[in-house]
């Protein structure tokens, strides 16, 4: 947390006379498998309010738009208060059109780093993400993009509770390929869809059962869901996710979005699970 804050503070004064960008979002979400559990008895569900804000400085690099940003995120849950969190981070995004005109393809890259502080210590950690995206607009109404991403997370403390197992189930990494598209209906309405395939580590929370001890790479108590829950990490899992949503333009710089995302994860030993996340978001971008 201190590292991210220090970099952010160093960035902001130098941008005092520069062009600022603002990106803010407030979202209500409902997750019908918050614990990423396989068995119905272990599945938890909850509502959450999530806030995100980013302040950036934009300038031109290599004929593209570069934005350096400081970013904060927070989440508050109705029932599982141990999941409440605050994260502070920095990021850099770059975009460049590969030609002139509405339909010229574009290339974008993004990198971010966060320090994350949760109500329950086991989830405290730092995370980073990298992405590269190639997109194209096919007219005023439709645009699509294809991209690849890498995500990494490290749990701060090794909270080992089972001999022979690491106590860092929330130290994860994965690689993703994704495809997304937006189809606008006039200037107000827009339907968006996305699909992604991620290979890498996942973490689930469940009550103890023999299968997780055979397959998991790390185990720790997870009191966020109850005193008898443990979090376990699975490596080499495939997660396919599909999102569809509707966006309504409130103003030139604001929109109200509703979306549902379905996630299906297949892991070794038949430890598969799936879930849906429903969200309504208010987005402001300037």
């Amino acid at each position: 947390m201190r590292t991210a804050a220090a970099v952010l503070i160093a960035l902001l004064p130098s941008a005092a006379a520069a062009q600022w960008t603002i990106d803010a979002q407030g979202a209500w979400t409902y997750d019908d498998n918050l614990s990423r559990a396989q068995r119905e008895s272990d599945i938890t569900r909850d509502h959450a309010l999530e806030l995100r804000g980013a302040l950036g400085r934009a300038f031109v690099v290599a004929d593209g738009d570069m934005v350096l940003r400081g970013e904060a995120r927070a989440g508050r849950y109705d029932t599982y208060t141990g999941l409440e969190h605050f994260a502070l981070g920095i990021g850099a995004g770059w975009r460049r059109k590969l030609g002139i005109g509405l339909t010229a393809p574009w290339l974008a890259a993004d990198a971010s780093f966060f320090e994350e502080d949760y109500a329950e210590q086991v989830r405290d950690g730092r995370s980073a993400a990298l992405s590269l995206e190639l997109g194209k607009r096919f007219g005023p109404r439709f645009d699509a993009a294809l991209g690849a991403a890498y995500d990494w997370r490290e749990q701060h403390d090794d909270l080992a509770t089972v001999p022979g197992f690491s106590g860092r189930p929330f130290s994860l990494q994965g690689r993703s390929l994704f495809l997304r598209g937006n189809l606008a209906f006039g200037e107000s309405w827009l339907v968006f869809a996305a699909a992604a395939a991620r290979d890498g580590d996942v973490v689930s929370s469940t009550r103890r059962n023999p299968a997780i001890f055979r397959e998991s790479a790390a185990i720790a108590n997870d009191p966020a869901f109850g005193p008898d829950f443990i979090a376990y990490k699975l490596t080499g899992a495939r997660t396919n996710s599909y999102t569809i949503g509707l966006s309504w333009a409130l103003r030139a710089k604001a929109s109200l979005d509703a979306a549902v995302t379905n996630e299906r994860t297949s892991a070794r030993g038949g430890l598969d699970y799936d879930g849906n996340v429903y969200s309504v978001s208010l987005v402001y971008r300037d």
Partner: protein
Amino acid sequence: MLAAMLVPCARAADLRATVHDAQGRPLGDAVVIVVPQGAAPPSPRARARLEQVEQIDLEFVPHVKAIQAGTAVSFPNRDGVRHHVYSFSPAKRFELPLYVGTPAQPVVFDQPGVVTIGCNIHDWMVGYIYVSPSPHFATTGAEGTALIAGLPAGRYTVRVWHPRLTSDEHATERRVELGAAALAELGWVFVLKPEARVRRAPAPGRAGRY
């Protein structure tokens, strides 16, 4: 809004044009062009002027600009971000690569026609420059009217162009004969097509501007 560029004439006439959409609402940004019948179009260079289309709050201002052929237009950027103005229109192809402030050289529009302009950074930015072959033209305001004053008595062809017209502008033509010191009034009602413009509001998964 008025663009009648006439030598003062003691026996001049005026033309008031009124434009509405099919729902009866006044239609702004409609260009009304008055072309003298049988007269040769004036030399484009005879009326060299400097006009401007600004970029304010990531939009072209005005959205529709009518000029006479031969007019030079500058594109001052009043925003704190860079713009990259371009046009692929046959009447004028040009590009002003990433800039802030006012580009040193204005762009001369010497061919009559419609020039659609865009910004290569902000896809929703679209504007139109109507390059008129005639010196007599005006653009309707929000109230849907335009006044072309000081027309010499005579016969004219009057037509209207708007970015959302469903037909060619020549389909809107009317013929009118103006007497000395007369006020003629003409009206049009148009069924409009939706504007083909990229949505400006934030789109999911799109943190940038494309």
